[in-house]
Every structure is written in C-alpha cells, then in structure tokens.
C-alpha cells in the first residue's frame, strides 16, 4: 500500500496535476456557489476540457470540482440561504442565522475548517478501505456485478425519501430505457434508432447529463425568476463578512462534532444512493440529540455545532462515495455516476482491477482528495470575499452564458449539430419532469449503469448455460439481491407494520 501511496503522491503532486486540482477547486467553488447549479452540472461542464488530458489529470480535475462545488454550495447557503447543492441544505439551518447576526465570516471559516477536517479524515479512511474492498471484490463474478448494480439502483430509489420511492424507481427505469438506445453491442442489432445515423452509437452520457442538469437547471432559474428580496440578500451578502477568526472555546466545541460527523459521513457516503445530503441531515440530527436540551435549543438559530456537523459530514460523504466507484465500478450517487461515465470514455473500467491495472489513476485520485482539501482551505478561504462577488453577476448575463457553455461543451466533443437539438429536447423534458417533482439523479444513474448491467446479465447467462438459476444458487449474488430487496421494501412496509402494531396495542389496551 505504501508503494501505491507514493505512486499516487508522485502523480498527484506533479505540477500539472497540482494545477488541475487547484483549478478544479476554484472553478467548482464558483459554479457550486450559483444557486441551482450543483456538482453534477459543475463536473459535466468540465468534462469536455478533461478529454484533452490524461485520465489521472482529468479525474483529479473532476474530484477538485466536486469538492469545490460542495464548498461553494455551503457559501451560498450561509450567505444568502440558497443552497447550490442538496448536500448543503442543512448547512443553511445554522449558517444563515449566523450570517444574519453579522458572523458570516466566522460561519464561512467554520464551514471551511469542518469541510477540511471531514474531507481529510475521510481521505485517510478511503486510503485503507478502498484497497481492502478492491481485493475482496476481485472474487466477484458477472452475476455478482449484476446484483450489485441492482442494489445500487434500488438503493438510490430507497433513499429518495418518503413518498418518492416509486417516482425514483420510475426515473431509474426511464434512464435504463434510454441506455438501450443504439446498437446492441453483442448482436450488432439496432434498437430504437428510427434509422437515424446520429442514434446508432446511442445517446451520449455527457449530452444527457448536460441537458438534464446544467441546461434544465438554467431553464428552471429562468422560469422562476428571483424575487426582489432574494436580490437584496445577494447584494447585502457581499458587503461585509465580518471576522473569520475562531476562539479556542469554539474550536474545542467543534472538535468532537467534527470527529463524529466525519465517521458518520464517510460510512453514509459509502452506501450506494445515500450520499452527501443524507449524511449531512443524519449528522445534524445526531448532533442535535447529543447536544442536550440546553445546546440543542441553539440549533437552527446559529449553532456552531449545527453548522460544523453537516459541513463535515457532506465532505466526508463525498470521499466515501468514491469507495464503490473505485473498487466496484458502481457509482453511489449522480455525481460519481458522471465520473464513471468520464472514466469509461477514457477507456478505463473502474472496478477491482483498477488499482492493479491503473494504479496511477487509483492512488492519485485518493491522494488528490487530500490535496484538494488543503487547497480549499488555504486558497479558497481567504478568497471567499472576492469569490462571493459572483453572486452579484446578474442572471441576465449568467443564464445565457451557462446555456452557451453547456451546448458548446457537448458540441465540441462530437461536432454534430444534431446533439444540440437533442439537448434542447431532453432539457425541455427534464424541466417538465422537474416541475412534476420527479428526481433526475436516478435517471442518470440508470442510464450509466444500464449498459453495464445488461452486459453483466448477458455474461452471467452465458456462463450459466442460459439458466437464470444463478440468481438464487450463487450465495453472494443471492445475498446482494436480498439486501437490495430489504433496502427497497423495508421503508415501504415499515409504516404499515408500525400502524398495525399501534392498532393492535390500542385494541389490547381497550380489551385490558
């Protein structure tokens, strides 16, 4: 492992890659700060640039953008109560009240130190967890991979929240359907191409990601214009941030919160589908309970603990979400799904063999996460007052620029104008589905995993002489499928079971 770390350090610390991670953090912070644009859009906008780079540099740039976007999202949460990313919604609970009290600088500093600590602790965990899991997963067969992909997709739906499971599952199936467009790889048969040459290679994942995230988010911002109140808050936010210094007592109060939230965040991030949003809410809730009645009352009114917990957890979860991606080749979130797409387009198959076949990529990404956190702390924190000025760029200018960069990013990869028309169609469809409150991330995850899932299922059937018995005969495959079923059905069944138990206890009470 030491050799691997040194290899990673050598690659990640090269001048080009240091530049990449710095640029990534910086650009990510900018984009993440724009309300509505999350890390998926930020990474999607970067992909056309990464095509000219070697895989390690490209992935390092994207990892930097990911961290930067989360940090940028925290900034807009704290300054204007408008989280750029779902993972930073909980940050606004206490960050914005602090900013209202004239402690915006302090809140930003707490966010930065917590993010740094969370990211760093999680990077150390990743250093040990990823190679161990990768060695174990070398024993996995295509049947297990198929089951793992089913688990990944169902987990995303299961974590979608109460009342949204069916919608998330439906969007996953929709994404899987889109992935079947094009030429079937093993039989050479065209599917759903309508005889159009432009569809023979299928729909490009970059096109779909840009259209359903960057373009549709920009169009949603056009549909719902900012109120006067929002605009006033944005102007006020940049005027005076106040001191960024923390007292020794505040650091002492933060330290145990950061430690606990980092561990919780990392392990939540590892779970497919859970991600930064759930991690931040879990950490917030846990700390509120642990704070006791006195300190617990401060939550929601500018509590240091309430700000440190979600900030630590969301960054730790970002590192955690790389574990299934790097070791199993299965993305646990929309953001890592888009990174998987980028890796595949480099011709690199993430999975257990990644750290054997491409140790440079594997280790440099892990090491660059630590470097990215350091850069976020030493570069972004002092620059925040200046970066925050992006909030002052009028939407009249910003929106057409986002549309331009999204369209041109896709066009410059294929030089096919049909792609621009297709992006508009997908963006309109995505806006419609967003208005109907259908989630987009499961669709993207389904799209990216669709091809791999079909390929593994086909291979599994060939190995098992066209018999489906592998689903129940191979213990590992069966266990993974059972876990998937549990994850999916337990949240659906539990409310009914609880209601039944309550009714039974009521009946027993009446009878007694």
């Amino acid at each position, binding site marked *: 492992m030491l050799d691997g770390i040194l290899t990673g350090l050598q690659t990640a610390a090269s001048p080009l890659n240091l530049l990449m991670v710095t640029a990534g953090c910086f650009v990510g912070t900018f984009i993440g700060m724009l309300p509505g644009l999350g890390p998926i859009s930020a990474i999607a906008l970067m992909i056309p640039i990464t095509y000219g780079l070697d895989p390690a540099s490209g992935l390092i740039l994207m990892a930097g953008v990911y961290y930067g976007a989360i940090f940028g999202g925290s900034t807009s949460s704290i300054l204007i109560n408008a989280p750029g990313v779902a993972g930073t919604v909980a940050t606004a609970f206490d960050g914005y009240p602090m900013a209202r009290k004239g402690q915006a600088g302090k809140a930003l500093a707490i966010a930065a130190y917590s993010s740094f600590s969370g990211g760093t602790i999680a990077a150390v965990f990743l250093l040990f967890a990823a190679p161990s899991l990768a060695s174990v997963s070398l024993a996995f067969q295509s049947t297990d991979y198929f089951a793992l992909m089913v688990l990944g997709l169902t987990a995303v739906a299961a974590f979608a929240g109460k009342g949204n499971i069916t919608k998330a599952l439906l969007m996953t199936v929709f994404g899987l359907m889109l992935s079947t467009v094009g030429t079937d790889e093993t039989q050479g048969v065209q599917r759903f191409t309508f005889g159009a040459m432009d569809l023979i290679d299928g729909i490009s994942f970059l096109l779909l990601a840009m259209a359903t995230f960057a373009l549709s988010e920009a169009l949603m911002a056009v549909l719902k214009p900012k109120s006067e109140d929002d605009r006033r808050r944005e102007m006020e936010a940049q005027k005076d941030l106040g001191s960024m210094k923390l007292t020794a007592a505040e650091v002492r109060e933060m330290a145990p919160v950061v430690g606990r939230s980092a561990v919780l965040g990392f392990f939540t991030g590892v779970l497919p589908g859970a991600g930064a949003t759930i991690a931040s809410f879990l950490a917030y809730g846990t700390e509120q309970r642990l704070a006791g009645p006195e300190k617990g009352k401060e939550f929601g009114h500018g509590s240091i603990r309430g700000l440190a917990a979600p900030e630590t957890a969301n960054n730790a979860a970002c590192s955690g979400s790389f574990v299934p991606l790097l070791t199993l080749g299965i993305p646990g979130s929309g953001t890592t799904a888009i990174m998987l797409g980028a890796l595949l387009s480099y011709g690199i198959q993430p999975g257990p063999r990644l750290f054997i076949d491409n140790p440079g990529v594997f280790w440099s990404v892990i090491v660059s996460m630590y470097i990215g956190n350091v850069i976020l702390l030493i570069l972004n924190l002092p620059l925040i007052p200046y970066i925050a000025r992006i909030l002052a760029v009028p939407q009249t200018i910003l929106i057409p620029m986002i549309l331009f960069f999204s369209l*041109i990013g896709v066009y410059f990869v294929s030089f096919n104008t049909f792609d621009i028309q297709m992006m508009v169609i997908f963006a309109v469809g995505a806006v419609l589905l967003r208005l109907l*409150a259908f989630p987009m991330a499961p669709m993207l995850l389904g799209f990216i995993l669709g091809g791999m899932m079909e390929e593994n299922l086909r291979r599994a059937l060939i190995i098992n002489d066209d018999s489906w018995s592998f689903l129940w005969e191979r213990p590992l495959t069966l266990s993974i499928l059972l876990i998937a079923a549990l994850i999916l059905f337990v949240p659906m069944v539990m409310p009914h079971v609880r209601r039944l138990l309550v009714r039974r206890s009521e009946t027993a009470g009446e009878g007694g």
Partner: protein
Amino acid sequence: MLNRDRVGALLLLAFTLGYGALTFRIPLLPFQAQAAFTARTVPEALTLLGVGLCLILLIKPGRDPGESHAGYQWGRAAALCAVMVVYGLTVRPGGFLLSTGLFLIAGFLIMGERRWVLILSTAIPVVVLFWALMTQLLGVFIEPWPEFLRG
C-alpha cells in the same frame, strides 16, 4: 384527482407504451427465438417494470403539496429554447464567431438585459477568447467565419 404524480405517471406511461411497442421492431435472428437472452430481453423487462410502476403511481400517488406556477416566465424559457435550436442550425453555416455572438446577444436580450455596453462588452470578448483558447491553445479547429466568407 389529477395531481402532479399522476400527470407524470401518465406521461411516462405513454412513453413506456411507445417504447414497448418499438421493442417488437428489434430484429432477431431465427436461431435466437428460443434463446434466454436476446437484444429484446432487457427492453421487454423494462417495459413491464415501467408499466407496473406507472400504474402503482397512478393508483397510489404521493401527497402533492401543490406548487403554484403563477408568475413563471414560460415565454422567456420558450424563447431561450428556440434560440438554442436556431444556434444548433446556424453554428456550422454561420461560423462560430458570428453565430455564437448572436446567440449570446439574443440570450441577454431575452433575459431582459438592455444595457448595450454590457451586452457587447460581455458577448464579444467571451466569443473571441473562447475561440482563441480552443484553436490556439488546445488545437481544436473551429471554423470562425460564415460560409460566404470562406475561401
């Protein structure tokens, strides 16, 4: 009652049924008729899953808190979509500099920007710098001029 979940389910059901109908058009070789896995297997399974999930959502939709769409700028969003389509049609014959410049200017105007100094001082440098970056620095050739000016 028709709430947002049901409208979405109906739209996706229509899509799924169309997808399912097209599944039968996927050609199969004669010896594949009895095969356990063909190019149709996954699309057929997805159609069944899609129809099932749409029906579940239609029968048991979630609680919709309802969202007022009053004040939404539909016209502005539609105009931006139209400009994007036109940009797609003109970027090649019109050349990158002219078509992109016009696209950005049209976008700014649609968004309500009327300060011409700001419009031009943003659009022109962005287009020229982006073109220079791609062609001179990254070595990607992009035709700058419209067809009638090309030699």
